[in-house]
Each structure stands twice: as C-alpha cells, then as structure tokens.
C-alpha cells in the first residue's frame, strides 16, 4: 500500500538526492512546482475536451471526435490554433495594462495549488494558515479582471468587467464563510490538519468526512455555488454573457492572451474544486475503511473528477441569472445561510457530548432542521411573494 501511495514522493526524493546538498531544497521545490504544473496543465487540456464531449452527449450529439482518437488531440489543436492566431490589440487600448491583465490573472492562480494536499504527505508547502493563503491569492483575480476590462477601452468589456467584479466580491463572502465551520471543528487553518481530522472511520467503516454532517453538507453546497460564481461558470457566467455583451472583458482579447484567460479561469476552478475536496470530502482519504489499500492521490483524483463533472453538468442545464438577481442571491440568501451554518456547526459541536444510543440520528436531524428551515424561509423571501401558479384559461 505505501509503495504505490508514496510513489511520487519517492521519485521526488530520489531525484532531489542527486543534486548537491547545498541546493537540494531548491531542486526539491522546483520538482514539486514542475509536478503541479504538469498535472494541472494537462488536466486543463483534458477538461476542455471532456467538457465539450459531456456537453455534447447531454445535447444528443457526439462532441469533438475528428482530431485524434475520439477527439483526444483536440486540446492540442486548440492550443496550436490559439498560438497561431493573430494577437490583436485595439488601437485605443492601454497597451501595458492590456498585456499584463492575463498574467495578473494566471500567476496568482498557480500559487493557490501550492497549499493543497493531493495525497498522503504530498502537499507542496505545509503552512499552518493554509486556507488564509488560499483566499489571499484568490482575491487578486478581481484586480486582473478589472485591468482586462478597463484596458480594452470597449463598452462591452467595461460592462463585463464591472459585472465580474461585483459578482466576485459579493460571492467571496459566502465562499469564505462556508469554510469557517470546517476550520472551527477541525481547530486549525492548515489543510493537512483538516484532512487528518477527517481521517477516522465510524461504524460500518464509513469515513468521518465533513460532508456527512448537516453543516458539512450545507457548507459543501454553499461552497460549490459560490465557487461556480467565483470562477464565472454557467449559472453565473454574466461577465462573459455571450448573448448580452459578447464576451465581456474578454471581447478584445485574441490569440494566446485569450488562451491565458481561459487557462486562468479553469485553474481557478481546479483550485476551488481541490479545496472543496480537501475541506468537505475528506481530502485523500478513502470513503470506506476496507478501501484504504488504494493510493491516496487516486481518491483525490476521483473526487476531483466527480466535482468537475458536476460543474459541467450544471453548465449544460441552467440558464444565466440577471445581475441584480445574482447579487440578491448572494447577499440575501447565501451569506445569511452560511452564517446560520456557523450556528449549526456550533450546535453540532455542543451536542457532540450526548452519549445515549439514539444520539447520532436525533442530533443529525436536529442540526439538519436548524439549517433547512432558514433555507426554506430565505428562499421564499428571496423569490418575493411568489405569484400564484399561472392558470391558462382556454377559449373554445
């Protein structure tokens, strides 16, 4: 078990061993960086093709299958196309800021991967305030979006940039608040401790993941909704609402800069999915005790793939929200719910001491009710006095 599980760690140490002692830490760091960039770079290429094929299958068509065996070389073709396409910079655009915007978006997102634990002792850096680092890096992307939107000097991109910033800021609050219960119960900001806290197994070998607790389930849903909004994906893809403002802040970008934005957006999605897996789905732990033999990074990959499929599935189904609805949804529904989630986590913590046999189900139902009722009331409040269901009378 530990052979296959630690295979990457072993390779890393082996390679670093050859380097002279003085510069060994540097070489180890470079190896880790290279590993992360290789894995998530190819994951980006794979996701573009998987997304188009799954979307196609959901729409009764094949999806790209001409380039390479069943379309697997499509990302290569897209990459070459992006590189060879002319990189047009509008005349009135602000050249330097126009050039810096994609960099300012992509570089911070790469940093966010440093802190995620992909497998047993397979996280690049072990910070004791890992989550704070993650959100600090994540918040730099708004500035990049503004730089892109403003520097293109084009009406559509300005409207798109304003929408993007309003959306990102108002969805950062529920994103951060929905992770607070996990930190409270795990008692530490470091991601490795959080994963360790979810390591034990309960009756029947089921892993003690956070998602099996009421506040964990609510937290995961809140986190995923906020993550979709943070990474500008489907129900919230207002910044590049094609049908309204062409491509929002991406209108004036073409060629490799557009590909960089694309890369930045997908990496943001991967980082948030990785965090969701680490916080709520037990990081690299196996779901059941008797499944412990599989390598830990494989579990992280499976959960990661499942969440990415969920994002693609949502993208295939839901229409887009309007800007004011989007902001109302965040401030009047998600944020209050995540605050209430804190109460539920606290209730869960204090009722932890019950010893009676029937404690777990009663405790679970009690906390679930504590979150379900506000969910219902806030939902009704958000939709306003929902008009009576439409009845259509017929004329003979």
């Amino acid at each position, binding site marked *: 078990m530990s052979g296959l599980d630690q295979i990457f760690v072993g390779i890393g140490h082996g390679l670093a061993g050859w380097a002279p002692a003085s510069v060994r830490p540097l070489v180890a760091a470079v190896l880790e960086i290279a590993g992360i960039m290789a894995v998530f770079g190819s994951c980006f290429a794979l996701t573009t093709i998987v997304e188009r094929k799954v979307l196609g299958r959901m729409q009764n068509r094949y999806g790209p299958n001409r380039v390479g065996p069943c379309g697997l070389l499509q990302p290569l073709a897209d990459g070459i196309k992006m590189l060879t396409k002319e990189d047009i910079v509008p005349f009135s655009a602000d050249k330097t800021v126009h050039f810096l915007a994609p960099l300012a978006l992509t570089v911070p997102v790469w940093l966010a991967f440093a802190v995620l634990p992909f497998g047993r002792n397979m996280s690049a850096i072990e910070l004791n305030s890992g989550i704070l680092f993650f959100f600090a890096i994540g918040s730099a992307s708004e500035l990049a979006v503004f730089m892109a939107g403003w520097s293109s000097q084009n009406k559509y991109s300005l409207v798109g940039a304003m929408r993007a910033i309003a959306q990102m*800021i108002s969805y950062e609050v529920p994103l951060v608040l929905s992770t607070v219960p996990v930190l409270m119960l795990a008692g530490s900001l470091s991601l490795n401790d959080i994963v360790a806290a979810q390591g034990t197994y309960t009756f029947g070998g089921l892993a003690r993941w956070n998602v099996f607790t009421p506040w964990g389930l609510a937290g995961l849903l809140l986190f995923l909704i906020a993550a979709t909004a943070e990474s500008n994906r489907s129900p919230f893809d207002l910044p590049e609402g094609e049908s309204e403002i062409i491509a929002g802040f991406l209108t004036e970008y073409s060629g490799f800069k557009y590909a960089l934005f694309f890369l930045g957006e997908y990496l943001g999605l991967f980082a948030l999915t990785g965090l969701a897996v680490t916080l709520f789905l037990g990081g690299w732990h196996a779901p059941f005790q008797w499944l412990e033999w599989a390598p830990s990074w494989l579990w992280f990959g499976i959960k990661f793939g499942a969440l990415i499929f969920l994002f693609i599935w949502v993208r295939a189904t839901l229409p887009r929200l309007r800007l004011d609805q989007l902001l109302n949804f965040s401030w009047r529904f998600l944020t209050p719910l995540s605050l209430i989630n804190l109460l539920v986590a606290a209730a869960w913590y204090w009722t932890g001491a019950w010893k009676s046999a029937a404690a777990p189900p009663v405790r679970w139902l009690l906390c679930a009710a504590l979150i379900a009722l506000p969910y219902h009331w806030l939902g009704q409040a958000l939709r306003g006095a929902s008009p009576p269901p439409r009845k259509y009378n017929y004329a003979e």
Partner: protein
Amino acid sequence: MLNEIAFLLLASLTLAGAVAAMMLRNLVHCALCAAGAFAGLAALYLQLNAEFAGFAQLLVYVGAVAILIVFTILLTRGAEIQPGGTTASPSWWMGVPVGALVAACLVGSIMSSPSLLRLPSQNVQAPVKSIGEQLMTQYIMPLEAIGLLLTAALLGAVVIAMREPPKSEPAAR
C-alpha cells in the same frame, strides 16, 4: 545569502511601486502600481515569517483596498490625463525642506525608541492559533472598536453612494 538578495529585490520593488504610484500621469496606472506596492509589502511580511500578517495584508489590501481605489478613480473623475500638467508643481522647492523636516523627526523617534535596542529574538514562531487567542483575550477591545469603525464607514459609504430617489428631489441633477 539568499535571504538578503530576496529582501533587497522585494524592498526595491515595493519602493518602485510606491514612487510610480506617485509619479505616473495615468491615474489607473498609479492605482495599479499602488496595488503592486501593497503586494510587495505583503511579501516582505512573509519574508519575516509573519505568515498571518502577510496573508491578511494580501487579502485586505490587494484584494479589497486596491479595487476600492480603482473604483473611486473610475466613478469620480475617470482616468483622463490632464493635458500638459507637469508632475511636479512649480513651487516644488518649498516642499523639499518640509519633507526633510518630517523625515528627520521620524528617523529620530525610531532610533530613540526602546524597541530597537532589544536584540530581535531569532524567528519567533507566531502560529495563527496564538494570534487568535491574543485577539480574543488581550486585544478584544481594539478589535471591537475597529469593527464598529468599519461598519460606520460602510454605512457612510452606502449613504453617499445611494442615488436619491427622483421623486423627493424636484430640481434636475
């Protein structure tokens, strides 16, 4: 050795960002350079192993304050460049002595303050947990005061930004 080079690099970047924020013509460029300076400062904190301070600085300043500055520039005067205005006003020579005076008293107070005398202990580990406890126990009053201050500022901003409903304001804008 590596540390010194990194420190020099980061310090020069931060200073360059700050100076650029002051000197450039285009307001939005100044705002972006200011954001660069904030990021440089955060990197300096991290170099001193003050993780919490560094990440908080990055989160608060680069994440929020920079956007705030940029928005205020856009919504108020826009980023047009005043044609022909030189960066330094004609009576710049009056400013130099005043600047020198302020710098002198600043340096004087720093040098004479007791904190410098004590030898800085080797990289003191300040894990987040102890910071959290300190905040909640010893420094609870300043934390609450800051909270109140920020809410008041938030409410003030909302009141200013709210556009009066047309009915109550008869005259044209």
